[in-house]
């Protein structure tokens, strides 16, 4: 041994088991911190591309910018790219509806417009068509073809197709294709729906400041300024209330992650503090100075940190890697520019910092203690426990079995250990509950496709008869078909059911002699089949969805929410058993409300009083035979173009085919990008927390080896030993879980109520989450205690106690 500092290596080696536990604990915390921060970092990179793909790559949109304004903005030093977009409204191309617009060629890439064939339109008489429309609506129009376009003002002009561009999911789903004109082609047109000048700033530009500057210099009013809040949010520059709320939540939760990292390490170190007090005291006995002990401790901390940090960092990076891999595997076109191994320097640095800092902090405590107590005391092991000076009177409770009482006693006597243990568990739970807020946020702010989402819809104003339905059922590639009959009807009922706000918006609502009001608007009558009723179950607020009963008793299902001018409102408050009278060609038909649904998954084009859902039979009984207005089709294989081809051939002749597949997959993609990370966060927290509990419980049992040996020598049986140690562990878990559940729920509540209210998220007591937590924590506790205990029990008593 060349220097006393070599003691460190001897000690770490001699106590390899304890050293390993300490190293694991540090590595776990480092992995947690590195993993979480790397994941946010990588998440923001992915989300940025995702947002650009979904909403376009622009930061600012100036409404009705003059050419002069546009040129000043375009020439600013902080602007990377800019371009003008004009929405010319709905037109007709070769007789079919289309959406007319014009976009500057330089900005096409920013808006994800990609020329697949031919050129971007440049001449006055050139247009570019969306691919699917070129194929389907214009029987394979190609570049160079002539098309006739009728504008909203009923003027008609001829154009040459200069190119074909990529499909846009939303347009495809609506069945109205986009037609892109050249900038010069729009010059004469005055009837412009919207005229936006899009601006993309260079990276690192303080966008809000630049926008303020532009507004000031050009004297542009607020209502002419639009920001791409989605993009600004993911690059951390949004001042929008919702985004700031999310930033705040992120800041709170990630601070929590840092604290948890510190507490987890500190906790493991604390458990073995006492032995270390003895070790350091021993060194003081043989003449080590306080300074030397401090140096020794620092060296030891360094040794542990050096061993723990690399694997911790690696593990943390692996977590981010898994997320990247999933997303890149799922969609490499959007995320192609992100490398699979995207490294987050910030995450790694934070992991290292937390690792080193905490190890030093945690190991300095025993050193201080050892320096504080007299060497003799430190060695003889008296003063082992800090116990309040008062004499302990409490006799082992006679209410509980001895081993239970002893387990609890030993947990409660070591206040600091109890506190740290409970804190460590509680923090895990608080983090888990806290990050669950993001899951709520994600589910309310982003939609995914539901079981009822169709791949293809056939829509017909005049209705489709049974024969079409039959032909569809005969198709091989079709998984499910379900149609809806729709009608706008005059429906009346007890006037008191109308909401006050609704009534007021009409001034006065007249009531007839029979007590029924005169409906100021029509109501929407919708037919469902069995499948659709089944899918509606989760939305059922009251009553039941029994087709048989509805058929028998002329039942109707009321729909609570009504979308009016893009705002969700409630116009009517029905009660079960209410009677509804519907005007039919043969007089009034009486229906009974048998259930209330929150909403239906589609919206009426017209404003309505309310919506009712009935069975197909009741619909026919009421309205006569009308045929289906909509038939939704789900394919066995979404990429089955052959079946889609057959469906296309059925369209035409008043039947419009809407291909919703691309839109669906874009919606799912948008959701997935966030879901991978949000669930990733929660999963990482759960895994690390579980490993942390296992590790600390292990440490706690291992550090008690000698104590347990003595108990066995005195005559404690294996079963008693098990219950004693389990009770102690359970005490930590129960207190930690209780504190965690309470504080975590409160945190959820505060975060949601203060920062997510703009997303219409309501806080509910997280009963289910807490149930999961309790099950997990208790299972983990039991398993993490039993195995080291078993190992100890299998050894001879003298072997573990060495000298009695």
């Amino acid at each position: 041994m060349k220097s006393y500092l070599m003691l460190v290596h001897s000690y770490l080696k001699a106590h390899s088991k304890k050293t390993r536990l300490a190293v694991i604990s540090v590595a776990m915390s480092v992995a947690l911190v590195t993993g979480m921060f790397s994941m946010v970092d990588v998440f923001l990179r992915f989300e940025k591309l995702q947002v650009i793909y979904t909403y376009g790559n622009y930061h600012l949109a100036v409404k009705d910018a003059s050419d002069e304004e546009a040129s000043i903005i375009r020439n600013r030093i902080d602007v990377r790219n800019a371009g003008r977009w004009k929405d010319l409204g709905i037109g007709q191309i070769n007789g079919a509806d289309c959406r007319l617009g014009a976009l500057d060629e330089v900005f096409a890439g920013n808006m994800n417009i990609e020329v697949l064939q031919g050129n971007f339109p440049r001449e006055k008489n050139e247009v570019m068509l969306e691919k699917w429309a070129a194929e389907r609506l214009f029987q394979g129009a190609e570049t160079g073809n002539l098309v006739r376009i009728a504008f909203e003002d009923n003027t008609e002009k001829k154009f040459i197709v200069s190119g074909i561009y990529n499909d846009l999911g939303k347009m495809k789903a609506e069945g109205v294709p986009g037609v892109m004109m050249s900038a010069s082609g729009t010059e004469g047109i005055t009837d412009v729906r919207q005229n936006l000048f899009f601006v993309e700033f260079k990276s690192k530009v303080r966008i809000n400041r630049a926008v303020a500057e532009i507004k000031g210099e050009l004297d542009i009013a607020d209502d002419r300024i639009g920001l791409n809040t989605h993009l600004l949010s993911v690059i951390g520059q949004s001042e929008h209330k919702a985004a700031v709320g999310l930033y705040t939540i992120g800041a709170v939760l990630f601070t929590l992650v840092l604290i948890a990292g510190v507490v987890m390490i500190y906790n493991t170190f604390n458990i073995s503090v006492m032995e270390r007090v003895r070790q350091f005291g021993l060194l003081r006995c043989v003449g080590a100075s306080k300074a030397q002990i401090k140096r020794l401790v620092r060296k030891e901390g360094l040794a542990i940190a050096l061993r723990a940090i690399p694997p911790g960092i690696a593990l943390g990076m692996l977590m981010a890697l898994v997320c990247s891999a999933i997303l890149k595997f799922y969609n490499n076109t959007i995320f192609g520019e992100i490398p699979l191994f995207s490294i987050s320097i910030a995450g790694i640095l934070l992991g290292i910092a937390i690792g080193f800092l905490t190890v030093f902090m945690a190991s300095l405590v025993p050193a201080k203690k050892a320096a504080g107590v007299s060497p003799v005391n430190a060695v003889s092991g008296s003063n082992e426990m800090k116990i309040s000076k008062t004499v302990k009177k409490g006799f082992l409770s006679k209410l509980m079995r001895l081993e239970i009482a002893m387990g609890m006693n030993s947990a409660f006597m070591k206040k600091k250990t109890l506190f740290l243990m409970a804190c460590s568990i509680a923090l895990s739970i608080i983090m888990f509950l806290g990050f669950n807020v993001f899951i709520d946020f994600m589910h309310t702010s982003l939609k995914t496709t539901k079981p009822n989402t169709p791949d293809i819809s056939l829509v017909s104003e005049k209705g489709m008869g049974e024969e079409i339905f039959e032909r569809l059922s005969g198709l091989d590639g079709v998984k499910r078909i379900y149609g809806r009959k729709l009608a706008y009807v005059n429906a009346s009922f007890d006037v008191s059911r109308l909401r006050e706000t609704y009534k007021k918006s009409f001034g006065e609502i007249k009531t007839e002699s029979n007590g029924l009001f005169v409906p100021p608007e029509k109501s929407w009558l919708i037919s469902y089949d069995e499948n659709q009723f089944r899918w509606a179950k989760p939305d059922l607020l009251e009553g039941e969805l029994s087709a048989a009963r509805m058929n028998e008793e002329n039942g109707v299902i009321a729909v609570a929410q009504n979308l009016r001018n893009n705002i969700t409102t409630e116009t009517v408050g029905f009660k079960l058993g209410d009677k509804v009278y519907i005007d039919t060609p043969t007089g009034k038909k009486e229906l009974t409300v048998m259930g209330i649904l929150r909403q239906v998954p589609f919206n009426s084009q017209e404003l309505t009083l309310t919506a009712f859902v009935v069975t197909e039979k009741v619909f026919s009984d009421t309205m006569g035979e009308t045929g289906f207005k909509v038939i939704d089709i789900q394919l066995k294989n979404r990429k089955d173009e052959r079946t889609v081809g057959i469906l296309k051939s059925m369209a035409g002749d008043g039947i419009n085919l809407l291909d919703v597949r691309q839109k669906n997959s874009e919606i799912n993609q948008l959701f997935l990008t966030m879901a991978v990370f949000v669930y990733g966060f929660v999963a990482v927290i759960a895994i690390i927390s579980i490993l942390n509990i296992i590790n600390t419980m292990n440490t706690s049992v291992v550090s008690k080896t000698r104590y347990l040996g003595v108990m066995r020598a005195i005559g404690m049986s294996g079963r008693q030993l098990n219950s004693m140690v389990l009770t102690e562990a359970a005490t930590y878990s129960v207190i930690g879980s209780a504190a965690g559940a309470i504080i975590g729920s409160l945190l959820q509540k505060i975060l949601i109520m203060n920062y997510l209210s703009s997303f219409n998220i309501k806080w509910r007591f997280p009963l289910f989450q807490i149930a999961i937590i309790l099950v997990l924590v208790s299972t983990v506790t039991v398993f993490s205690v039993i195995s080291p205990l078993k190992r100890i029990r299998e050894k001879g008593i003298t072997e573990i106690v060495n000298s009695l």
Partner: protein
Amino acid sequence: MEILRAENLSKTYGKGETRVEALKNASFSIEKGEFISIVGPSGSGKSTLLNLIGALDNPTSGKVFLNGRYIFDIKEEELAVFRRRNIGFVFQAYNLIPELNVEENIVLPLLLDYKKPDKEYIDELLNTLGLTERRHHLPNQLSGGQQQRVAIGRALAAKPAVILADEPTGNLDSRNSRDVIDLMKLSVDKYRQTLLMITHNENYAAYGDRVFRVEDGIVAELGGGVR
């Protein structure tokens, strides 16, 4: 009445180069109420012998009968019960339970057996050990001598068949050592206990009714051959 008998008790630790024959063919018999002192140089095998008698460890060969019961085939669960009823330990390092007060530490073996401690007996024991005033103190509030007295109380609490003490005075100064030995002697006489005590100090060995000397793993009785 014979309470303890060892037959050809041997213990070998390790294998090959690290092989140590810690105990070689020890045979003896002890009557109820006897006080046996065990002496011998450090590393001679004294602790090994005591650990085997206390069923804390298994021998390489040989047998031990306690109260006529062969102790090495008792299963783990039953052994714990057997140990707390029949064997009391006093360790050099006291090994009290730090979270329990004096009285709780003493009655622990009874509580482990789910027995209600005989209050009078315990009071008397505390009195004999001079711990009445300290009954509610925690071990870390006591001196070494007091802690060892608590350990003696714990060994006596269940009125076991034998008490095994491994250098009970090893951590104590001479005054405290004498107190502890006196107390052990007193209790053994008073409660007619059987005691095997290892000691380093030849003076204390004289307290014993008989003295065993262990050297190089061989047990011999001083002033008479091994019986």
